[in-house]
């Protein structure tokens, strides 16, 4: 089976290990990833800020890039996948672009969604002997309706001790443009999140979304915490003592 990797701009620029893990993990599962190299950003920042014309031009570019192949499109980000599922709204109904947007949206999957819902896999043979807590990212959880997928995958990881995070489903305060428009509020929300993560007593906080990971990692660093922020995919790819 072939899949197209949609690595996202945040993934590419800030989380190279995670992308490498994603590639090798897919290969471990017998899947052949390919990488459309013309890909850039999906246009989510523009779309969520109210700049629909700009988002539309980026959606066009994205759709051109990924329509060369019929293979499913797999991404390590719930919010970017959700953006792709908004694409049909950007084009008039009945237009060719609208039809293409619907077709592409239907075969674009967030990583845990693809594993659990499409492949029916929850045990990916990972080994991660650590105390781990998990922050449920809004776009995975409510945006794509993936409430249990990440946790089922984590539950199958050997020697992983799972600690439920207080207010697991509460937003970390990132919110894209929100974080720079209202830094004080974003900061207060982040402090809340970091306080709960520290209180969990975990060694690692697992996050399935690059934006939240960036925010939470920064918050933990600022608080002087030794807890490691890590992308879910890296945990799932781990096979040694990590």
């Amino acid at each position, binding site marked *: 089976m072939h899949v197209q990797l949609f690595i996202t*701009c945040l*993934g*590419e*620029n*800030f*989380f*190279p290990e995670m*992308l*490498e893990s994603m*590639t090798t993990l897919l290969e471990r599962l017998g899947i052949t990833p390919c990488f459309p*190299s*013309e*890909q*850039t*950003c999906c*246009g989510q*920042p*523009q*779309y*969520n*800020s*109210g*700049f*629909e*014309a*700009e*988002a539309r*031009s*980026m959606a066009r*570019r994205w759709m051109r890039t990924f329509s060369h192949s019929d293979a499913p499109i797999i991404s390590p980000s719930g919010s970017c996948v959700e953006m792709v599922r908004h694409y049909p709204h950007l084009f008039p109904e009945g237009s060719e672009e609208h039809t293409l947007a619907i077709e592409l949206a239907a075969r674009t999957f967030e990583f845990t969604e693809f594993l659990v819902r499409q492949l029916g896999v929850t045990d990916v043979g990972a080994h991660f002997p650590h105390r781990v807590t998990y922050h449920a990212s*809004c776009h995975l959880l*409510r*945006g794509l309706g993936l409430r249990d997928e990440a946790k089922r995958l984590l539950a199958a990881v050997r020697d992983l001790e799972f600690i439920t995070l207080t207010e697991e489903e*509460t*937003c970390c*305060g*990132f*919110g894209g*443009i*929100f*974080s*720079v*428009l*209202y*830094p*004080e*509020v*974003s*900061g*207060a*929300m*982040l402090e*809340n999140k970091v306080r709960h993560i520290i209180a969990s007593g975990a060694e690692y906080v697992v996050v399935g979304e690059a934006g939240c990971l*960036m*925010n939470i*990692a*920064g*918050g933990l*660093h*600022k608080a002087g915490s030794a807890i490691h922020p890590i992308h879910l995919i890296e945990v799932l790819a781990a096979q040694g003592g990590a």
Partner: protein
Amino acid sequence: MSDTPTTPIEFRRYTQNLSPAIPIAIQQATGQFFEKRNARVAELPEWELLRDVGHRLRLHTLEHLDAYLEQAATSLSAAGVQVHWAMNGAEANAVVLDIARQHNVKTIAKVKSMATEEIALNTALQAAGFQITETDLGEFIIQLAGLGPSHIVVPAVHLKKEEIAQLFKEKLGVEAPPDPEQLTAIARARLREVFLAADMGISGANFLVAETGTLVMVTNEGNGRMCTTLPDLHVAVVAIDKVVPDWESLATLLKLLARSATGQKLSTYTNFITGPRKTKGEHGPRELHVVLLDNGRSRMLASPLTRETLKCIRCGSCLNVCPVYKQVGGYAYGWFISGPIGAVLTPQLLGTKIAAELPYASTLCGACAEVCPVKVPLLDLLRHLRRRVAEGDATTTPIVSPVLRGVARGSAIALGTPWLYRLGARLMPLLQVPVRRGNWIPSLPAPLNRWTMVRPFMPFRARFRRWWKHHKKNE
């Protein structure tokens, strides 16, 4: 009282200097409400179905509002109610003032109502010399404090008992310990006098049943019944979106409202008022007036998306789950309605020029939309309104800041052009060298310092493309 803002609402400025005590008080109260709500919801396996019915019911009513309003007006008249129509707040206030003057009213007892907050009725009545007292305990408190509601259901949610005791001492001249029971007893004694002396009662309504012309009021303190039965004159200000077709629909909506608002199966008092008293022995006012208020709602009805805003039944559950509201409280939103529903309603009622900051006052986390009992698509509405701020709408030219527009346009080009994007990914790791300290970038110049003032930035480390080439070669 919350007067209508005439200058832009400054969400950022308000939230820059928040007292840390405010989020604590709000989080305690809203947390309790939400826990109770969850417990009630868990008892109903059909909750999601019920939400769907609520959503369809509200949408259907709004789609045929002209017919239902006509039916409601006919039923109200048949029940002996005098019906008035008001296009805006000024017209509604004028109607109420006229009625009060005609009846030589001096003192007015008032039930908590979001519609009257929306039109700043209290301000208009006080300016005309009438003495008006809010009789809901929370409203009574914030009226003493000279404030508007900071929450849809619990208007004084941001105040602690110590602050209320201090307020009672200052405004009522009564010394009392910060004990909720004793403070309530003081208010109760005061309010008793108000009920008995009032020449007029003013209320809103949670619903207006079209088939019988029945006003429905949901309260927990009984003050609503006092205000609408003791005085000989009762005026209800009802926004046109409050109409429900029939009693069966009402039953569904009450089920959703009580559980969502306060985690009750049914509120302590659910009042049904069908016309004034007809015989001598009956309770209720001799004269009942209903002012049907549009105030921008017809305009919102015109578009299928903005119409959905009007499904709201004012339960406040979107506030109780909103992580932004829980940090900033109600006043940050600048008007009578706050939280996610305030962030979408205020720009539609006052225009995006006044409320440009509000649609952005959300992380789009979606917690609100998930609990809304009638499925108001709050995220779609927030994004829609952001677009109206950025691109302009029928009433206003674009008003987004030039910096933000520049960033949006520039980033669309830089991120949307493959060669430029790849060049950027290669250049950034070099450009960041002067500001990088180990694994972090601790601070950045304005406007990027808006990120680093809260937490450090991560260094750019694009290397996947190289890794991929290498990886493929080794296969």
